[in-house]
């Protein structure tokens, strides 16, 4: 199974090994650190779960089972929030294996935080009234029906 980021709604940037993710539909924003940065980087390329597990095992001191469990849990959370969608495995061709040289680093679990305090900024304005030319407006108190 492969996943990719829903680019129509997601904006993300990485600084200091932490990914800041903005969901422009829900108004939720996220912080993703630890090995989550590596997983996100591969999700952006449309990687398969298998390839993400391989990458974590080659980079960190972690068993394939633990790496698979980590990827599965994180992907499920991101998919549930609408940030990911499944895609054909064919897109994996665009994601060549990445060799990590040198010794494996101590394992870092993903650090995933979700912030909902700004969701009100993204509430859509339903249009109830339009003027004579069809442009939306609110009926003012001093106006008749």
């Amino acid at each position, binding site marked *: 199974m492969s996943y990719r980021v829903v*680019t129509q709604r997601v*904006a*993300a*940037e*990485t*600084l*200091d*090994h*932490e*990914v*800041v993710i*903005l969901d*422009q539909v829900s*108004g939720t*924003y996220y*912080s993703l*650190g630890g090995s989550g940065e590596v997983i996100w980087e591969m999700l952006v390329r449309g990687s398969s779960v298998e390839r993400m597990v391989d990458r974590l095992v080659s980079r960190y001191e972690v068993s394939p089972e633990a790496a698979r469990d980590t990827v599965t849990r994180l992907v499920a959370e991101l998919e549930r929030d609408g940030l990911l969608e499944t895609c054909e495995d064919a897109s994996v061709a665009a994601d060549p294996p990445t060799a990590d040289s040198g010794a494996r680093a101590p394992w870092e679990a993903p650090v995933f935080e979700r*912030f909902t*305090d*700004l969701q009100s*900024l*993204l509430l*859509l*304005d*339903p*249009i109830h009234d*339009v*003027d*004579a*030319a*069809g*442009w*939306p*407006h*609110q009926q*003012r108190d001093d106006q008749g029906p």
Partner: protein
Amino acid sequence: MSEAASTSPTHERVRVIGEALARFEAAARASAGPTFDLTIAKRRVRLRFAGEGLAERLVPALAHRIGPPSGRADLTVHLWDRASTGVGMSRAPWSPRELLPGGRVAEAQALGLEVQCQLDSGLVTILDPAAGIATLWIDDAACISRHEAAAPLRQLFASWFPTQSLCMTHAAAVGWRGRGVLLGGASGSGKSTTALLCLDAGLELAGDDYVLVDPGEGGADPTVHGLYATAKVDAPGVARLPNLAAAFDASPYPPGPDDKAIAFLHRHAPERAGRDLALVALLLPVVTGLGETRLEPMSGARALRALAPSTVFQHGGDGRHTLAMLAGLVARLPCFRLALGTDFPRIPELIRDLVTEGAASA
């Protein structure tokens, strides 16, 4: 020409903006208005008004940017109202059921236009970014809101300036002798209070709520441009700013039970308000309730998380471009948590010291 060609997005875009411009020209023939040429971040923005009443509400916050008439403008905005010209807006080509964040009309984006509507005032703006042409229409200039008077054309600017690699940012900025700090954070974080305390104490202000940021792509130094020379505070806030009392007294927008007072600063602090500042740091204020005000180093990612979401979510549009610009800015600046204490006079001192230290080590 085939029917398919006659209804292409390009044709439709030209038709929509063309009909709006034709309405403006009719309004200008009915009641001529003034034209102002603004210079903002070396870009020339021309405001052509028709009728009466609109300019006096929208221009004061931008008055510090008015220069002599120039030749070609990078963006020309045509503004009119129906009440004083008798000319309404051209017919809406769409019937949207809801507006996207920033009041944007989704159907217009498919044509390459940015169309934004304010439900409370009925204000409509259309921007053709490729042509550098925009229109702004409202039924009656008297319906211009306080928010619009304090930060006129904000949504229009938020759509256009990114095409110039400049980012309309929900932040304040203050400084000393041309060097300054950006104050980020969501509403209520203390950034406006901090900025206006600094202005009252003699520092320079780029803006207290929305500023234009040049993130320094291509090797330039990060810079903040003061777009609006205004101060916006509630009644208790006015009392904390004794040196700005004359500006608040002269304003047509006094504080109300649910309304902030707006002071227009271009006459009262012309050398210090709406300034451009070379940025030396990004500060994220937090009200602590403790006595001491302190600066604490902060990671770039945390700073980006505090600065970017409210900007991206409020203005809508291409959030990925906005976030990328702000990430570039954050990567170029030291970032600090500004733990705000109750010793207010200390806050401007701390910021002036920080900016001055930066100058000494530069």
